[in-house]
């Protein structure tokens, strides 16, 4: 009897949460659209990949071998020749006006020098306004020129020649690193923000008080709040994975089951974060600010989504350990991109599970304290 009464009570709650979410068409569209927008933005708009870098060429005494080096450069997708300069001043002007991003300068009588000495000078001048990008494309250019040099003067091959192979992401596609990041971001955003707002809204409108005077137990109220957002997040997870695999061509290298399992765990953690925020925030605006600013910003900046955490100062690296999304992103990268088996992400799983359990316990305690 008691069990069935509790079941009815729980059912009534869960049904109400679903009604609440799905009645608001606009919100539901936004919630389901967020992952698509994020993937499109990161996939096609915010790209740090090198493509079509505009190059100026200065070759004072036109040389056949210089021409071959340039042809090699242009044969890649990375560079396009947009200007043939006549003087160093010409190059400087083009760089300053932003007409080109890189200039390649051959020394006079490059051919003759190469033939006589077996070595000749080439200079790369890059606009380093965007330092990461400049480092990237000058690196590409250097590699290509070195390869061309090998062909032109094989005798001068250096004794030690590193051969680089990029594992897991040979084409250096951005999508490989941002898909796990977007997964972390979207799931955190929807779970934490929406749950916290919806709980705080009940407190503001006084309906929470009505529920608290009823025989319903706090545990049930919290669980009933979690279920609809859990399901919604699963839909989002599926959207992101499908888009990643079919639209961006990011393969799932590891086991799909492990990937989904870790993601479900992270969804639970994010829901706990939302519930915890709701016990701290007093108004809906506060809940939004806390989950929006205080949670999203560190998630974006410190989770390794955009900036590598390894290069940050020690203090920030320590803070980044507190961001649940960071652990999730590491785990997803390992499973999805590197194809690692589940036991290699044990540490990440334990951290996530611990965080979730801790937050839930704290929230329940706070919830109960309010009625004491």
């Amino acid at each position, binding site marked *: 009897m008691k069990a069935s009464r509790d079941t009815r009570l729980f059912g009534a709650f869960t049904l109400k949460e679903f009604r609440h979410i799905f009645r608001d068409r606009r919100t539901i569209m936004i919630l389901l659209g967020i992952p698509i927008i994020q993937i499109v933005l990161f996939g096609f708009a915010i790209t740090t990949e090198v493509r079509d870098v505009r190059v100026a060429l200065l070759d004072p005494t036109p040389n056949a071998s210089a021409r071959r080096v340039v042809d090699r450069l242009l044969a890649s997708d990375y560079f396009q020749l947009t200007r043939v300069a006549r003087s160093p001043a010409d190059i400087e002007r083009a760089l300053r006006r932003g007409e080109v991003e890189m200039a390649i300068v051959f020394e006079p009588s490059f051919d003759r020098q190469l033939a006589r000495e077996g070595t000749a000078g080439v200079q790369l001048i890059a606009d380093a306004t965007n330092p990461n990008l400049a480092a990237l494309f000058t690196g590409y250019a250097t590699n290509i020129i070195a390869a061309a040099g090998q062909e032109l003067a094989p005798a001068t091959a250096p004794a030690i020649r590193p051969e680089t192979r990029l594992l897991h992401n040979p084409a250096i596609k951005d999508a490989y690193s941002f898909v796990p990041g977007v997964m972390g971001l979207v799931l955190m955003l929807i779970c934490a923000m929406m749950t916290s707002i919806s709980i705080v809204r009940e407190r503001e409108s006084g309906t929470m008080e009505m529920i608290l*005077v009823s025989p319903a137990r706090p545990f049930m109220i919290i669980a009933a709040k979690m279920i609809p957002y859990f399901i919604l997040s699963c839909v989002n997870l599926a959207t992101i994975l499908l888009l990643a695999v079919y639209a961006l061509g990011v393969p799932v290298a590891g086991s799909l089951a492990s990937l989904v399992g870790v993601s479900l765990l992270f969804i639970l953690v994010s829901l706990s974060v939302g519930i915890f925020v709701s016990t701290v925030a007093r108004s809906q605006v506060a809940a939004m600010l806390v989950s929006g600013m205080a949670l999203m910003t560190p998630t974006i900046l410190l989770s390794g989504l955009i900036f590598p955490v390894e290069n940050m100062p020690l203090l920030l690296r320590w803070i980044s350990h507190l961001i649940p999304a960071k652990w999730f992103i590491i785990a997803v990268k390992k499973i999805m991109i590197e194809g690692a088996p589940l036991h290699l992400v044990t540490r990440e799983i334990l951290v996530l599970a611990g965080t979730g359990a801790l937050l839930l316990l704290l929230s329940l305690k706070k919830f109960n304290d309010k009625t004491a």
Partner: protein
Amino acid sequence: MNVITTESLTKRFGSFTAVDRVSFEVRRGEIFGFLGANGAGKTTAMRVLCGLSKPTSGKVIVAGHDVAAHPERVKRRVGYMSQRFSLYEELKVWENIRLYAGVYGMRPAEIARKCDALLRELHFEEGRDKLVRSLPTGWKQKLAFSVAIFHEPEIVFLDEPTGGVDPVARRQFWELIYRTADRGVTVFVTTHYMDEAEYCDRVSIMVDGRIAALDSPRNLKERFSAGSMDEVFRKLARPT
């Protein structure tokens, strides 16, 4: 027969004593007015009686159960309506009724039957599928009250139920309260309107966490030689 009994009910928040050794009884089926200025401790006391908050000390028996020991038993037997008529604005009228009834563990078939009967009694059948947000305040108030007594509690607690409602709606609301009390449900009501205090069977007036007076409105007026409850209240709560 007493449906509420408190003995030295005390509630402290840190060093602040909100309710100070309050003892009183409420009889079954009566309309009990619980008055007091803002901050006198009436909301705190009422929250204890509903099982929302634990008493610091003292004994509180509501509907036959000790509130401190078995709050969930008390909760099942009381109804509560807050001053904000807390219904879910984005849900339809019948959805609100179903939710709150479901929370009290009522069966779906029973809910459906009683829901229809209730709407008929209120002459509000056409409002069944309306969103609560779209209802005028008077209807929200009536609906909130009906929801509070839907699971047939022994006592219904009303926390300033007539705030922000026009005089006609206020009058209709009190008719609803009388009808409920006639059915044997005890009505425990806080209010700031002294004319409403006159409608109660008995009235208690809280001052600084203690009950300064408790009697029928007529006896109180006699004792304080006052013409109205308003005068009684001012003599007690704002002694000059």
